[in-house]
């Protein structure tokens, strides 16, 4: 039986299903208790599982992260919510110095099976400190698994996989997708985990490859649809898992098309997009008909709501980049 779910409800269902399946899963953070989180991702969990399983903490992100580390050390599977991308920065030292390093420094004796959920990126008219694309900080830190779902189905299956994962996972939730909807066959998805490290071809094409993740996938798909009307066939890759990164799927697509554009909301300098470009060029140099280009946010602080339309990668900007891929007929 298929059910229509929003991205937010899919996450909520994933949390509930894992809490039901595993009594060591605990959810905590700011306002995640009776309120259900500012985006309602934890809605109903305290009522259903009790306040020892889903609870509010004092307003202190480092405290949340540090306590989660200790709880994971002592046999629980914490799923913590950082209320917004930029509100996670007070927890940065705990993430970089301990979450990412603890298993390595103890030669795997201490595992930290924990999930750090971060509502991230823009496109929702949020004011400053509410729209950062912070994935590069985490992806640059060895020891963190970093994923960003772009579909309602992935929201559900990837969060379940994140909770079952033996290592700490930074789970980036594109805020602008929270209200997007899909019909899901939930029953058939309950056991479909094991896809970290795998990118998917979200749309097949033959002329060029658009590589995107999280909030940029839908923009890339819209660009591919628009390009098709102009007779250009664009393939879209949904990266899904930033760390580990699926070099194979990405390189196979670019070898096939010979051209690529990487799309991400974060500022482009020293970014995940830059890393993807480098990896593609290292692997596909002889298949490339043009340099790999990027369409990213500008190298500026995330702009105010009235200005974000000029900042975010748009369909037009993506199509302009595609036009710049040194076509022989141009």
């Amino acid at each position, binding site marked *: 039986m298929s059910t229509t779910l929003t991205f937010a409800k899919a996450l909520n269902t994933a949390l509930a299903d894992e809490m039901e399946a595993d009594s060591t899963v605990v959810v905590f953070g700011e306002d995640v208790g009776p309120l259900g989180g500012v985006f309602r991702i934890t809605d109903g969990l305290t009522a259903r599982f009790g306040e020892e399983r889903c609870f509010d903490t004092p307003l202190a992100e480092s405290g949340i992260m540090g306590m989660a580390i200790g709880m994971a050390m002592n046999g629980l599977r914490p799923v913590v919510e950082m209320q917004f991308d930029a509100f996670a920065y007070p927890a940065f030292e705990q993430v970089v110095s*301990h979450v990412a390093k603890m298993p390595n420094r*103890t030669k795997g004796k*201490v595992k930290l099976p924990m999930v750090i959920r971060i509502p991230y990126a823009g496109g929702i008219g949020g004011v400053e400190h509410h729209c950062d694309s912070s994935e590069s900080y985490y992806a640059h830190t060895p020891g963190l698994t970093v994923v960003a779902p772009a579909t309602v189905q992935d929201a559900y299956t990837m969060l379940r996989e994140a909770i079952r994962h033996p290592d700490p996972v930074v789970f980036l939730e594109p805020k602008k997708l929270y209200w997007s909807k899909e019909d899901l066959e939930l029953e058939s998805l309950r056991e479909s985990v094991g896809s970290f490290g795998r990118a998917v071809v979200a749309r097949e094409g033959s002329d060029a490859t658009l590589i995107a993740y999280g909030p940029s996938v839908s923009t890339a798909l819209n660009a591919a649809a628009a390009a098709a009307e102009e007779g250009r066939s664009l393939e879209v890759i949904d990266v899904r898992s930033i*760390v580990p990164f699926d070099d194979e799927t990405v390189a196979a697509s670019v070898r096939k098309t010979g051209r690529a554009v990487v799309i991400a909301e974060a500022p482009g300098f020293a970014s995940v997009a830059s890393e993807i470009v480098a990896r593609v060029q290292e692997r596909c140099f002889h298949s490339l008909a043009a340099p790999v280009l990027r369409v990213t946010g500008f190298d500026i602080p995330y702009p105010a709501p009235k200005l974000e339309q000029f900042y975010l990668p748009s369909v037009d900007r993506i199509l302009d980049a595609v036009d710049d891929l040194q076509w022989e007929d141009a």
Partner: protein
Amino acid sequence: MQDPSRRPDLDQQATAESYMLPSAQPVQLVDPDGRHVHNDKYPLPDGEALLAAYRELVVGRRVNDQANALVRQGRMAVYPSSHGQEACQVAAAVCIDKQDWLFPTYRDTVAVLARGVDPIQALTLLRGDWHSGYDPYEHNVSIQATPLATQLLHAVGVAHAAKLKGENTVVVAMCGDGATSEGDFHEALNFAAVFHVPVVFFVQNNQYAISVPLHHQTVAPSLAHKAIGYGMPGERVDGNDLAALLSVLGKAVERARDGGGPALVEAHTYRMQSHTNADDATRYRKDDEVQQWVSKDPIQRMRTYLTDLNLLDEEVEKNIAEKAETVAAAMRDGLNAESEVDPEDLFRYVFTEKTSQLLEQAAKLRDELAREPA
């Protein structure tokens, strides 16, 4: 699981005056001359318990001396000595039971060893072999934390998980005076109090954070006074008085175990040596000041006290010294032996399953090493 909001023991009548304020002076039960000082609130531990702890005290001093020597011989990269603070080290380790947890810092090697961790395993960090050479679950001793105060939150998490699971576990979380200025110190005490978890925060106030004296860290009446702001009791104790430390920490641990919640204990002590061998303490403090603490040495006063009790004589001293020499010899042997490091270990533990990127990098390193002339 227990309801974390349930606080049956919460004393509604409690006020800062009634139970949270520390004593007017640091609690002392045996003075620097080895004489018992009466205290209404804190009983003197019995002689046998003191003798057992004294044994660890002497071993701890020997461990510090030996480690310093091994640094000078180039066998260890660095050693932050706890010379002068050994009573704090021993008390932190022996005030808890087997199922309890200890969260030490980089200066707390003696506490780690007193808890039963193998010295060579414990010293892998400072030798430069691996970040933490012991299994934290073997003796319930967390890794020796280097970033300040961050481990206090891990301690709160371990205690909170234990409480949710219904385990009777108390956690002793150690830090120094400098760490009390960190944000994580505040967050850890606040979280511990709000979640009412069994953590005893044990601050060794050795007066200096590398070169910075305490009055640059805080103008609070004492570090123990900070507890009031979190709604937990604070106490201060003579950190060179093994008997007082055992009594004060023992009481805080017992209270935590009985569901009384967290507490803060500040030990007044002194870092007799430089921060590490890479530091030069003569640049920021005068020898007069250091000399004043020589007479307050934790070992000397306990020796006098136990001798007066007829628990310590030449023969017992000799046995203890022999035990200390055995530990020191094991440290020498272990650290003088060439250690083998495996470059493949660089990639082995970053993730449970190596990513394709790490597999690729490991293969490259393997090739590179295979090409190197023997």
